[in-house]
């Protein structure tokens, strides 16, 4: 939650309180992140904007800057999966240039259903964002107990 604030705080401070950040703003205002590997199923797309969709910071979108009609809903997993603490190997850390663990924003990709009860989160491949370098990746964790489609609420 802290990380979300850090990442979006910059673009929000210049606005009056309550104003919503939207994708129609100029690119320079958006926190642009670069995927060091494309997301599975979406080769060739590397540049995304991370856009906060609600005031609480529970829901954001990863919006492609190369294919503007494409976006993914992402959320910090902590409110929904308090025990979810994925470990990544040194290789990933080095690719993202991670120095301090505090610099890492952990997000899960949501598969939005018609209702909250039908919405799932991908715990097998979270998105890690280095908030300092703005380098990110959907990291593939091949571990038992980390489903691709975990119900968002129990």
């Amino acid at each position: 939650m802290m990380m979300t604030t850090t990442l979006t705080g910059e673009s929000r401070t210049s606005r009056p309180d309550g104003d919503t950040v939207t994708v129609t703003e100029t690119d320079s205002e958006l926190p642009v992140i670069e995927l060091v590997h494309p997301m599975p199923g979406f080769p060739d797309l590397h540049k995304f904007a991370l856009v906060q969709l609600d005031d609480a910071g529970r829901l954001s979108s990863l919006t492609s800057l190369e294919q503007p009609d494409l976006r993914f809903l992402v959320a910090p997993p902590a409110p929904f999966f308090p025990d979810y603490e994925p470990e990544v190997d040194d290789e990933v850390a080095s690719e993202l240039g991670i120095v301090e663990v505090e610099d890492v924003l952990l997000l899960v990709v949501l598969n939005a259903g018609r209702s909250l009860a039908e919405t799932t989160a991908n715990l097998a491949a979270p998105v890690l964002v280095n908030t300092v370098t703005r380098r990110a990746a959907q990291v593939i964790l091949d571990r038992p107990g980390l489903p691709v489609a975990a119900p968002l609420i129990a």
Partner: protein
Amino acid sequence: MLGEDITVTVLEVRGDVVRIGIDAPRSLKVHRAELLAQLEESNRQSASPSEDVVAELSKALGRDKE
């Protein structure tokens, strides 16, 4: 062996379960093809939900908090 530095070993066969070990340089990404296919499918399904769905989810998450 695959090439110079990748070793595939059958570690164990027990009933229907076969454990396979893959020893490869750390720089090489080793992922199960079926997991990758699953992730591709999941990402495609997750991509670009409609405005209605996003608004509904955003609202529901707000309610959930209270």
